[in-house]
């Protein structure tokens, strides 16, 4: 806002202050006994004042003027609501989930949830942060020293500073890791600390996460989204950037490897069924490192290798999100199918950096916290810079006796995290007399298993609730609520013996009226804005999109698993295109005025069966066109194939799953397109259901054919965008080649079969059948321009089987397939080209021979030739899996004697 006159500026300033004051009045206050971080005393905290001022300033001039002129705050609140809408869309577009969204999970009754993110950031000022930064860096150093001791001399246990029960008695203390000194003495590369602020304003460490902490990916995603919604406030508050920390982590990982600057780094994930898989994909992509599963890696000669299309390539650093137990079935859990046999030995031999080192999990026990003050003084010669919340381990009998009379001030937590002994933390002040007796009894039976932490009334942070949707609704609604919050702060290794604390992290917000914060139990998250006072580069652009950090590392070839996923991504894309087209052709044919010949109906029915449009229980269109049509439409929308047909929506689900698995190789738009197409098709199909209003609930919902056609048409357009992106937007590497091979194999098998059946059934004899075949091959226009009204088998075969320029002719498809495969094979005498040479593929067919065949008027012979192509396509697919994909090597099993 500019003004020529100081007095105007002053008056405008007054009015701004009044508006902000009104907004502050509107925002809910924290309940008594909880610190309200929105306010300082009665007034708004200075950081929040700046924040709101900047949002106000971003209003369009007329709306800003209206608000400033004393109108209600509607325009300002509407602005927040609009931003919140953008946020929701962004979360949805990016496909951010906590649990992976798959139909497989859904059919098991598990729900994936979209990532829950608050519009308002949590803001931490310079003085708060200084305390946290120092405390967290010190703790990371302390915990690392403790690990060096426990996996070395064990002076802490020998000196009685740590109980044997919490180390040797903890399942997360790994004996196979004993005696191993990781390079640089660094056990922890990523440590997370959950911190909370008490009523007096002091910060406390509530828990420590040392094994494979989650949140680095979500923190980044939150920042990308929220900072873009409030660019002015973000700059004005000098919020510190996160990118430096991620870069430093990668540099540090590389610095710890013997491979030096050429070190190859991978991110090891348990796989798509893990609840935080989204962030594994996201983080790998941002860090510019390969995302791998255990099956992608192998240990040979005590070194770790990754299986790629070109053979084994070395791996030097594993940033892992797989828990300790599962890392190595040879030395850890034998039943783990996720791990890498021999990994512990490679680590022992110093040939791989594991971040974090295996065996750090025992530090996560709540029981450890109470021992830290003494240990810190002993190992670092200084007091803990930031205290832990008062914590007691009941295994120390004197502590248990002190604790018992004051139990109601505490939260009971499990000491150990194994199946038999863990339990949901219990807030003792909520116990009934009976419950209290039960708990006391359990503790007395086995005190070692129980720990207690003081109950801390958490500080509150503002949370955007949206505008009231129904003005009449009872309690007065405030769009800005007050919620209990905790923050997860990350200490990252910064070269051997050095730590950096990422200025930001994951703020986690409790549900309304709750004092326990957990993403797992329905909490939400917020971007954590940290003001360090160090940011000088105000003009620095905001992060606008996820661009991988620049890499100077040797690239890793395409991992076999990624290759397989790309292959299936290609196949499902093509299958989606084919089923969508076939469904349209079929529905249009059934709806058309013209009378279908029985041959044409038989052809359509056979294709509908083999392409999964209907199940075989459904009557043929000849028996009952209406029933057939209804079943076909119902199956279109059936994502889990419960009607027995694997139709369009089911294919879309598979495609989405395949796309999810290869996300780190796709542009974000490609993934969004798949996700959005699936959502849109779902929505259009379900809008289309006419639920019967009668009491007869047995009747299946009916759909309108017209509506279904509209949904299919819309989907066809989306599929064109998908295939376009695959053709135009991807680098021509072997991964892309496999995707393309997948598409061509699918197309070859489907179209050769369709054509074979068209001849076999006699559908091509009628005019309608003939035009439907052309339609299915998307070749009507070309045919008309070439052959005008002519209609004969020879012309049809010429265009659909032999033509080298029609991308839907069999010869074109098989030619492209063969040339892609030839480029894939790096060995001089590749298995696949040799195999291909023995096949009678359409691009080798002689035009004269086909002309003769067409003249003989023997549909059976033509069909036999075409069926041969279908079988060849399947054989190529099998051979490809054998040659390139890791699972072909046979199962892993544990043996013992």
């Amino acid at each position, binding site marked *: 806002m500019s003004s020529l006159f100081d007095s105007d500026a002053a008056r405008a300033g007054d009015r701004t202050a009044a508006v902000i004051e009104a907004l502050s009045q509107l925002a809910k206050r924290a309940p008594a006994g909880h610190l309200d971080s929105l306010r300082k005393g009665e007034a708004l905290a200075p950081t929040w004042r700046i924040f709101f001022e900047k949002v106000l300033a971003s209003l369009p001039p007329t709306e800003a003027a209206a608000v400033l002129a004393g109108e209600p705050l509607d325009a300002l609140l509407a602005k927040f609501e609009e931003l919140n809408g953008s946020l929701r869309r962004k979360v949805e577009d990016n496909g951010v989930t906590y649990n992976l969204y798959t139909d497989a999970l859904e059919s098991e009754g598990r729900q994936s949830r979209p990532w829950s993110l608050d519009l308002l950031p949590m803001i931490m000022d310079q003085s708060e942060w200084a305390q946290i930064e120092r405390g967290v860096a010190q703790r990371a150093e302390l915990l690392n020293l403790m690990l060096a001791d426990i996996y070395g001399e064990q002076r802490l246990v020998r000196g009685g500073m740590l109980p*044997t029960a919490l180390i040797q*008695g903890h399942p997360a203390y790994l004996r*196979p890791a004993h005696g191993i000194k990781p390079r640089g003495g660094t056990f922890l590369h990523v440590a997370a600390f959950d911190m909370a602020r008490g009523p007096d304003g002091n910060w406390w460490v509530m828990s420590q996460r040392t094994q494979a902490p989650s949140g680095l990916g979500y923190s980044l995603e939150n920042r990308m989204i929220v900072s873009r919604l409030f660019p002015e406030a973000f700059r004005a508050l000098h919020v510190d950037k996160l990118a430096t920390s991620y870069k430093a982590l990668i540099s540090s990982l590389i610095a710890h490897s013997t491979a030096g600057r050429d070190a190859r780094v991978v991110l090891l994930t348990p796989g798509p069924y893990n609840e935080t898989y989204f962030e594994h994909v996201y983080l790998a992509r941002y860090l510019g490192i390969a995302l791998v599963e255990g099956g992608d890696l192998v240990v*040979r000669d005590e070194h770790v290798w990754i299986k790629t299309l070109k053979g084994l390539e070395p791996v030097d650093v594993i940033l892992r999100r797989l828990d300790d137990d599962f890392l190595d079935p040879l030395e850890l859990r034998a039943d783990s199918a996720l791990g890498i046999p021999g990994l512990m*030995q490679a680590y022992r*031999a110093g040939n791989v950096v594991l971040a974090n080192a295996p065996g750090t999990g025992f530090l996560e026990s709540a029981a450890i916290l109470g021992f830290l003050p003494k240990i810190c003084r002993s190992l670092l010669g200084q007091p803990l810079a930031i205290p832990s919340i008062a914590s007691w381990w009941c295994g120390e009998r004197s502590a248990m006796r002190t604790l018992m009379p004051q139990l109601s001030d505490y939260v009971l937590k499990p000491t150990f995290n194994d199946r038999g002994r863990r339990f949901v933390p219990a807030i003792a002040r909520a116990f009934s007399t009976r419950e209290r007796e039960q708990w006391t009894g359990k503790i007395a039976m086995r005190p070692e298993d129980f720990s207690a932490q003081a109950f801390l009334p958490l500080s509150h942070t503002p949370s955007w609730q949206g505008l009231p949707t129904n003005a009449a609704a009872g309690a007065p609604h405030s769009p800005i609520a007050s919620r209990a919050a905790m923050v997860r702060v990350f200490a990252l290794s910064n070269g051997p013996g050095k730590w950096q604390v990422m200025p930001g992290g994951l703020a986690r917000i409790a549900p309304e009226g709750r004092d326990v914060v957990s993403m797992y139990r329905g909490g939400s998250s917020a971007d954590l804005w940290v003001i360090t006072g160090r940011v000088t580069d105000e003009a620095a652009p905001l992060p606008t999109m996820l661009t991988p950090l620049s890499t100077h590392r040797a690239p890793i070839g395409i991992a076999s698993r990624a290759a397989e996923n790309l292959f299936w991504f290609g196949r499902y894309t093509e299958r989606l295109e084919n089923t969508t087209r076939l469904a349209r052709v079929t529905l249009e044919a059934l709806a058309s005025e013209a009378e279908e010949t029985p041959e044409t109906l038989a052809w359509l029915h056979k294709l509908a069966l083999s392409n999964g449009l209907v199940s075989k229980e459904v009557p043929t269109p000849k028996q009952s066109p209406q029933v057939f049509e209804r079943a076909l439409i119902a199956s279109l929308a059936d994502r889990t194939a419960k009607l027995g047909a694997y139709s369009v929506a089911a294919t879309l689900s598979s495609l989405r799953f395949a796309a999810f698995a290869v996300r780190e190789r796709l542009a974000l738009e490609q993934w969004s397109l798949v996700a959005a197409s699936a959502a849109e098709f779902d929505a259009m199909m379900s809008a289309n259901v006419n639920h019967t209003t009668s009491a007869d609930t047995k009747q299946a919902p009916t759909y309108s054919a017209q509506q279904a056609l509209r949904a299919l048409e819309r989907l066809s357009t989306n599929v064109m965008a998908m295939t376009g992106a695959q053709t135009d937007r991807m680098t021509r590497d072997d991964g892309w080649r496999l995707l393309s091979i997948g598409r061509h194999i699918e197309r070859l098998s489907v179209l050769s079969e369709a054509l074979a059946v068209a001849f076999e059934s006699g559908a091509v004899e009628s005019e309608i059948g003939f035009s439907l075949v052309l339609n299915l091959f998307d070749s009507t226009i070309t045919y008309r321009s070439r052959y005008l009204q002519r209609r004969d088998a020879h012309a049809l075969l010429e265009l659909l089987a032999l033509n080298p320029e029609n991308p839907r002719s069999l010869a074109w498809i098989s030619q492209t397939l063969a040339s892609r495969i030839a480029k894939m094979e790096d060995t001089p005498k590749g298995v696949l080209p040799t195999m291909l040479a023995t096949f009678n593929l359409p691009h080798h067919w002689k035009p004269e021979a086909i002309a003769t065949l067409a003249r003989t008027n023997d549909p059976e012979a033509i069909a036999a030739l075409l069926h041969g192509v279908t079988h060849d396509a399947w054989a190529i697919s099998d051979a490809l899996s054998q040659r390139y994909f890791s699972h072909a*090597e*046979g199962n892993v099993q544990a043996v013992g004697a």
Partner: protein
Amino acid sequence: MKLSVTHETRYEYAYAVEQAHHIAHLKPIATQQQLVLSHQISIEPKPSSLAHSIDSYGQERVYFELATPHPELRVTAVSVVITPTLPPSMTGKLAQVTLPESMPWETVAEHMQYTGGQTFDAAREFAQPSPLAPVHATFAKYASTVSNNAMPVFELAKALCHRIYTEFEYSPEATDVSTPPQEALALKKGVCQDFAQVMIAGLRSLGLSARYVSGYLLTQPPPGKPRLIGADASHAWVSVYCPSAGWLEFDPTNDCLAGESHVTLAYGRDYSDVPPLRGVIRGGGSHELSVAVTVMPLEHTKPAALAAPAAKASKPSQSQSQSQS
């Protein structure tokens, strides 16, 4: 007694195994009681990579990889040891044995608990629950049936050992190497490993310290019959702790203390810490495992060449097991 031990393990796979990683705990441990005079391990086919390392209890392990397809794996360990001789008062069936003095078990249990700044005792580790010898009320209850107030800890162990010996049926088919002791206790059946793990779990559930001993047993051929080569098996028993007296070893399979016929391979919390041979293979389909153990007194007999393995167990593809006495 001077004993030679030959332990041969052979896997025959239905299909060639493409790749394998193994770890062997096959070298007898040298202690103040047991002398190890010689030890060799041979592996066929020749491993592509092999490394020795020391486990957290100071015992040697061998890691090896096989990176080329192999239809069969044979691991043979040959060792010569001298085992300690017990005084005559401590040999024979437990009922006749006179035990060394020990503290009341409640005092020992209290010693195992943590108090700030206490002096270190490495035995506390073996009072903690472990995967195959956990702490549970069921075991506490079972062990309580033989315990009295202020009973010396070794007397308690003896009573528990004898109870397991009399109550449990020796049955190789009832369990396998991964059977949890809860199950063995419910069945009252199993092999030496199960007997040992039930006893350890019982003692730990009372707060006491006990460890698992992996080893071999010299069996006496029937009078007048020659010793059968390869007929022996791996063995397991229990080592029980008392702060004043140290460790004393009980064999619940044979109702005796471990003596000169017992060759010690390794100590652990339970079987899972020290399996003689553990591996992960890729491919191979189902496999046949045969284990042949020969323990021979060297003063009397010359070491003989190995005869055919005594027992063959055809196993389904998933895993594992061997008979243990």
